[in-house]
């Protein structure tokens, strides 16, 4: 399962997509995910997938998608079976479309997250008007998750060394074992959080209302171009969705495929 998330983890590479402004990349993400939700036939969704694969190819990250394809396919098969069993008519057609929709949504998100660092993301949030406290909390949670996993391992190792078997006994016994694990863990983590708070205070957090972001974001020509193209794509998707053109096309397709 963990392989699935490889497509969401940032990797440092030198490609045109990596050097784009995060806000421009967000526009791409918006257009791609809107397209995967607006279209509901296998043909358009395959076409969309092709576009995403080309984008990943530009980002030199196609191998990440391929390595996590096994995990993704198991989810796709699950979605296929669920739809196939519950739908009254046009089962094959819709089931294929739904699994393709999942794949194209996942790929759309991976295009964004494979090429955007967490620091860039929080700077982009800050520049877009999200209050500094919230972006601060966002980056802090990103760092807390792995270190918490490590501390959890440390405390449970310490308990095991003292002869406590965490994975034994009935529900009640196990929950009691968890309190032995959680009270020291919580106290430990609270202490560390308060140290972080002290470090924030020491650096004068909240003393100045307006703080310049550490990383500077600049919109260059290619960012404007990307933004314009994404907006055009969004407009076309909306037009296709609202006008009758697309629904005529899908009903024709549905007649051919059972």
């Amino acid at each position: 399962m963990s392989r699935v998330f490889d497509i969401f983890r940032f990797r440092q590479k030198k490609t045109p997509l990596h050097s784009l402004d995060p806000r421009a990349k967000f526009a791409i993400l918006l257009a791609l995910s809107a397209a995967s939700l607006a279209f509901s036939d296998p043909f358009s969704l395959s076409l969309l997938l092709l576009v995403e694969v080309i984008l990943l190819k530009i980002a030199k990250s196609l191998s990440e998608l391929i390595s996590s394809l096994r995990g993704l396919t198991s989810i796709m098969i699950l979605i296929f079976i669920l739809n196939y069993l519950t739908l009254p008519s046009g089962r094959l057609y819709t089931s294929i479309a739904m699994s393709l929709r999942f794949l194209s949504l996942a790929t759309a998100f991976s295009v964004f997250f494979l090429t955007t660092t967490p620091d860039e993301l929080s700077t982009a949030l800050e520049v877009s008007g999200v209050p500094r406290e919230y972006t601060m909390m966002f980056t802090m949670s990103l760092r807390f998750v792995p270190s918490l996993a490590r501390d959890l391992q440390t405390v449970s190792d310490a308990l095991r060394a003292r002869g406590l078997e965490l994975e034994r006994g009935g529900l009640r016994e196990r929950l009691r074992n968890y309190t032995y694990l959680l009270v020291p863990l919580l106290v430990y983590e609270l202490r560390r959080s308060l140290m972080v708070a002290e470090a924030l205070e020491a650096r004068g957090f909240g003393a100045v209302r307006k703080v310049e972001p550490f990383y500077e974001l600049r919109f260059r020509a290619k960012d404007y171009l990307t933004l314009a193209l994404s907006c055009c794509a969004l407009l076309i998707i909306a037009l296709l969705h609202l006008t009758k053109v697309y629904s005529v096309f899908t009903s024709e397709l549905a007649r051919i495929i059972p």
Partner: protein
Amino acid sequence: MRAPKSVAIALAPLFASLTAAGAQLALPVGPVPVTLQTLFVLLSGMVLGGKLGALSQALYLFLGLIGLPVFAGGRAGPWVLTGPTGGYLLGFIAGAYVTGRLAEGGSSLGRLVVSGAAGTAVVYMLGVAQLAYWLQGDFNKAVVVGVVPFLPGDALKVATAALIARKVKARLKRLAERGWSL
């Protein structure tokens, strides 16, 4: 709990990541695994209070939304929130808020248990509503699948959360009296 802003900012991410860790700790009860997520949802409300507790859970959902594998079973992505079990996750925010508001009044064990039970009920309400929507509006089936198997585990979790929260709150109170210095 009146805490300076820096303390609040450091504590909300902590509880967001604790809920993420709780999603990976599962108790095998009957056919469905019971995760410790709601334990931390309740604890975040009890320890941080309503507003900050809800904020910590919103942070948790945001982490999962952008693709970190923090939901139960290592899942992530917006489709988890819109899927059959997404209602429970959205319920975490409301549940932490309700628990927190009720627990802000004091830290007696009885009060904490009642606030935890109320918060759990809120999580269930939102969870069942979305589950029923996915089961073609079959409300009874949603309750049978989505509430009944988890009730014994949740009763124990409410009790455990109350016990832990009392200890942690007492410790934080001592810290507050010393001006939040370690």
